[in-house]
């Protein structure tokens, strides 16, 4: 089934539910603009991410948004625009930058500037399941656009160590069931480096065409996130570009 079809059906079913239960008496007419992708960039800022590593991640995301190949991917899609948001997470998730329309090079550069200015607000734990729950409940539910696809881009250097009330894969499956694609960018540095790619594959990524694109340490994060953005925004088949990166 095409992703856009899944998204359409999901929206219709949810609207029917809200109306049937009386939660939604009346809603405003849907007047959102169509976009190619609604992309959530979620970034691990837990204890293992010190100030230098945090800066490498933020700089990597910002530089990727300034990259001509990424901007081209945004502007040459069917609708020529995307919506973008950024979530940082450690003990608790934080919607660091809410949904923002990117419809021009200037928009992309302005978002990059906001990424660079984000203050570091870390925490001790790597609560990935909690982050996905917030993305499911608070972020994906408030997309101010009609996207052809919804992508959650998860990057981090460790497994969930939060003893969450619900396992990571349960929330992952809920998102996937609603047509969301979750891609992973495990940063292979530190204690979990040997198993992290496999753990992301088993517990984090999901959805049509989902893929894992590891970074070989924090120093390689910028390269990896740039490649990942191009694939996610353009909707290219990641298998063709990144042979050997497994998908669910």
């Amino acid at each position, binding site marked *: 089934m095409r992703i856009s079809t899944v998204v359409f059906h999901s929206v219709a079913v949810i609207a029917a539910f809200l109306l049937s239960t009386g939660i939604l008496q009346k809603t405003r007419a849907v007047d959102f603009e169509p976009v190619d992708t609604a992309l959530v960039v979620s970034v691990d800022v837990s204890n293992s991410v010190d100030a230098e590593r945090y800066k490498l991640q933020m700089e990597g995301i910002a530089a990727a948004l300034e990259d001509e190949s990424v901007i081209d991917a945004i502007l040459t899609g069917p609708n020529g625009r995307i919506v973008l948001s950024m979530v940082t997470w450690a003990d608790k998730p934080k919607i660091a930058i809410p949904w923002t329309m990117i419809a021009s090079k200037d928009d992309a550069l302005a978002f990059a500037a906001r990424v660079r200015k984000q203050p570091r607000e870390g925490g001790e734990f790597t609560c990935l399941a909690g982050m996905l729950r917030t993305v499911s409940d608070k972020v994906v539910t408030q997309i101010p656009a009609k996207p052809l696809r919804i992508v959650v881009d998860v990057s981090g250097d460790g497994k969930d160590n939060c003893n969450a009330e619900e396992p990571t894969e349960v929330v992952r499956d809920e998102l996937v069931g609603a*047509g969301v694609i979750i891609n992973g960018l495990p940063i292979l540095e530190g204690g979990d480096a040997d198993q992290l790619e496999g753990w992301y594959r088993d517990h984090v990524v999901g959805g049509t065409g989902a893929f894992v694109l590891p970074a070989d340490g924090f120093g390689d994060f910028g390269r990896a996130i740039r490649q990942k953005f191009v694939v996610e925004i353009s909707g290219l088949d990641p298998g063709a570009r990144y042979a050997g990166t497994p998908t669910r």
Partner: protein
Amino acid sequence: MTGWRGGVQSWITAIFGLSALIGPASAFDPAIDDPTTREIRAAEGLANQTTAGEVTAALFGADHGQPVDLSGRGLKSLDLSELDFKGARLARSDVFGTNLARSNLEKTDLAGARLDRTVLTFTRFAGANLEGATLMRPTIYSDLRVDWREAPVFDSANLRGTRLTGRFDGSSFMGADLSGFNFSPHEPRADISFLPRNFCQGCKFDRARLRGADLDDAGLSMSSFQGADLAGARLTRTDLSRADLRGADLTGADLSRADLADADLRGVVGLETVKGLGLALNLERAIR
């Protein structure tokens, strides 16, 4: 829009299963709407529990002129922080244990709602209708520094007959209607026969209506009651030290054993009718 619990399959199940099973919100019977009954209903799993995703999506799609109706719904233990409720109807809803930090609940209808154990850091209730609601032991501050600036705002809200317990230091109730408001440690329910002292130090009650309120044993030092209506209020054992009561109406209020150290009583109306003034502590230190 999407990203919903259980995915499409679950939604279909929800529509044809859950909603038929538990019925619409209007099925809630106000005749049996007392706190004890609500707790029993919740404990038995009969409450119409709604997920955070459903609430967020409903609010996102709503306009201020057409508020979302969540009356009588189960909203327990959810993360509903940083949401704009856009004047939603939440009457008789069960919001026990839910995180409402930084949420905008201004002009919402929360009459009869159970807001016990909620997180209310920076929560805005201005103009809301909380008549008959309970707010027992909420979490007000983000950490143990107890920064009063984080306290919730209830300005111009309707809090008639509400029951509050816990620590609300720094909260603002300016212009609110708190008639019959209960902030005492006496709990009539059999399972909670005694509660510790309640605090609202440094709170703002200016121009508020507190007629007949029960503030027995409350810690209200440094609070401001300028022009407030405290007629007939029970202020027995209340700590009013350094409180600003200028221009307040204390007609018929009971101040037995209240602490009035450095309280500003200038311009108080009906001081001659106050009960137990001779029994008040530190009356000689009050500013008159």
